């Protein structure tokens, strides 16, 4: 809390706690990295520092990236996450603005908001079969577009809820002035309100993108060959011959780094995003 001075003992506890926390959080990443640059025979040696303790190799990275299926999966993941995030943000921003600025009676704003929120409450496994059947009907099985549609649906609550609050926090006067000057609703939305929420927009977009990138259940269910994204590819690192530590390392990093790094950029909005706007970070 806001104590004036922290006693030495307290400070020591604090430092230890922080160090433990950092080790705990960072170790898995480092372990993946280590495995990805160690020779298979060295996997179990207690060596931790490349160059000093062992000679690192880029062999696994090279051979993994040489596999056409892996590169296709990276491309697919990119398309899916960017497509879904963009779609969700476009649809969500409009809805968010409506919820922030208009009054709806039947159903009311609150109900509408809850309804959008509920998309994140529903367990996805419930939708697996319905979606599968639907996509089959639409001939969208094994297509990246089916995953774009889906992930857009499941991430839609983020922009709706987060942005509607941001719009509410904007001073109304600006838009009203524009309206008085004869601008239409759309003009005042695009010219006045929208530019003011761009940072939040970008952050929301990143959150949606990271969630779409990480999605596994539907990716596994709806793809069979040409649309396979990274999270499904990664499953191939464990197979009949046992776990291949080095490929696990490479694939884990290839899969995890894009969303993790992007999320760092949206840092300021993470708390607000993940609590769906309920707590301002």
């Amino acid at each position, binding site marked *: 809390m806001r104590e004036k001075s922290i006693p030495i003992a307290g400070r020591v506890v604090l430092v230890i706690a922080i160090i433990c926390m950092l080790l705990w959080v960072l170790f898995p990443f480092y372990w993946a990295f280590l495995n990805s640059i160690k*020779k298979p025979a*060295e996997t179990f040696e207690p060596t931790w520092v490349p160059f000093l303790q062992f000679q690192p190799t880029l062999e696994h990275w090279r051979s993994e990236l040489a596999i056409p299926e892996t590169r296709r999966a*990276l491309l697919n993941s990119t398309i899916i996450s960017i497509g879904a995030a963009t779609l969700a943000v476009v649809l969500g921003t409009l809805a968010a603005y409506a919820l922030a600025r208009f009054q709806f009676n039947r159903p009311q704003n609150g109900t509408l908001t809850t309804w959008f929120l509920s998309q994140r409450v529903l367990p996805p496994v419930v939708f697996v079969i319905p979606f599968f059947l639907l996509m089959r009907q639409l001939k969208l099985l094994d297509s990246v577009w089916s995953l774009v549609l889906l992930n857009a649906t499941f991430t839609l609550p983020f922009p709706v809820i987060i942005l509607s609050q941001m719009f509410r926090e904007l001073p109304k006067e600006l838009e009203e002035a524009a309206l008085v000057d004869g601008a239409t609703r759309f003009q005042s939305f695009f010219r006045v309100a929208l530019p003011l929420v761009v940072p939040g927009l*970008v952050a929301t977009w990143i959150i949606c993108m990271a969630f779409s990138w990480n999605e596994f259940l539907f990716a596994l269910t709806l793809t*069979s060959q040409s649309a396979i994204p990274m999270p499904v590819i990664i*499953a191939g690192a464990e197979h*009949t*011959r046992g776990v291949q530590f080095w490929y696990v390392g490479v694939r884990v990093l290839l899969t995890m780094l894009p969303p993790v790094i992007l999320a760092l*950029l949206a840092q300021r909005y993470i708390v607000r995003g993940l609590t769906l706007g309920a707590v301002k970070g």
Partner: protein
Amino acid sequence: MRRKTVFALVFLMIASLLIAACGGAQPQPTEKPAKPTEPQPTEEPKVEPTAVAEEGQAAKEVEAGELLPPIVAEPCAPDCPFEGQTVSVIVNTAGAKGPISGPFYEVRDEFEAATGATLEIVEVPFAEHFPKLMTDMTTETGQYDTSIAGAWWLGELVGGDFVMPYDEYYDDPSFPQWDIENVLPGPRDLLTWGGKKYMVANDQDGQVMYYRRDLLADPEHQAAFKDEYGYDLDVPQTWAQFRDVAEYFNGKDLNGDGKADSGLTLHLKVGGQGMFHFMSFSAPFVIGPENSKLYWFDPETMEPLLDSPGHVRALETLVDLTQFGPEAMMAWSLGESWDHFLRGEAALTFTWGDLGALAQQEGSQVLGKTGAAPIPGTTEYYNLQTGEWVKTEEPNMVGNTTGGSWAGVISKFSDAPEATYYLLALMATEEKSLIYAARGWDGVDPGRYSHFLEPQGTAGIDEYLAAGWDEADIRDYTSAYYENFNAEEQFPYLRIPGTFEYWTQLDIHLSEAATGQATPEEALKATVVDFEEVTNRLGREEQLQSYKESLGFE
């Protein structure tokens, strides 16, 4: 923050697109589809000798080896039969140098040069393979032209009318020629259904026992064993003897590294094909001269028989045996269990042919020490027809074709069935098949006369020696398999619709028993409940019909 964010974003997107785009652009500039029929040695990164003995990974360091199958198909240009077609094969995930999937990467250039078609390889984990395939077929998508399928799926695949027989192509001389009669009768049966040919011979599975020849022949061990157990240490012929040998060696140092090793090794991870081991293991507890067919269901009522006293005793014996192996094996996949043996850390195991062949490769600690023999038997089995235990004079040994016998089937929804058959037949040619069988890493196991040494088969020892085999090892290995496939009694393989689900349930319950979550009897009783549920859902009458047909009762 805003500008930085946007900039970094754009950069990231471009970077990831770039990486990905490299993939789409150029078709892999691999080496030219080779000219001569000579096996060409690929230059290969030398493994440092020190790497070999390292704990944990020795066997995975085993390099794929220099032995390549001969090129048998002539390049077709300019007049290619299947120009522009694409053949997609779905196969268990194992990578370009892994079992079953490896040979497809290897044959890709040759096949493409010979036909003008393109080969696409889709790898899926073992547990997802069948579901993916069924999804593709029930939706009539036809994404996959062929699946390198497990033999126990055939009931569904044929019953649902999802795969096509290849009899017509088989007789057509414009395809690569191979001889189905060359396959031993047991595995051959798995290739056909109702008199038609559906699977193109590739891998022939069956399980045998492996033992450390050096340990069993060691006079010190022999003397100590005799002291303790009162009979001579020899290759186990019954599971009781197997238990004694495992118990004796458990905890002793078997590879000279000063650490205690295990009596045996198994792999029991859920979803890792562990149920197969129970099948080969339990066969002699139930199958015998007076009951050579009944193991799975009652042919009158379709009631599962798996909780019979014979099955229960088998599982109890198996669970009892697990105490002589490392505890970690409950979570092991196949490869980890094999590696344990290959590092010289276990005296006994029973599994597929891969292990015998892997033992010959660089990195193995048991080259020249790997003996093989048919799966042990019992001296008493439970006759399901009479409900009585039957004692036997000689050990009651039962052969098996346990396993996937992974082989290609042609999808009915394929738009390139001929090119697909060409691919499968090409890999089934005798020349290629022999090399596949002789190598360990590719997962293709022997099962043809042309794989077995004279006089049992037609192979000469020289090919095997050239492939790096130890002579004693190969003689043991092929004769163990020959005996296994030709044993009087054979384990009844189940191929009716729903087998995938029946066996998955069995797999889970076995794991429960092995890890002490249920007693063997409870586990098998629960399996029976699950089996009944599956049968009811699929229709008891239809299931009964299929089952009777599969036993040859009608």
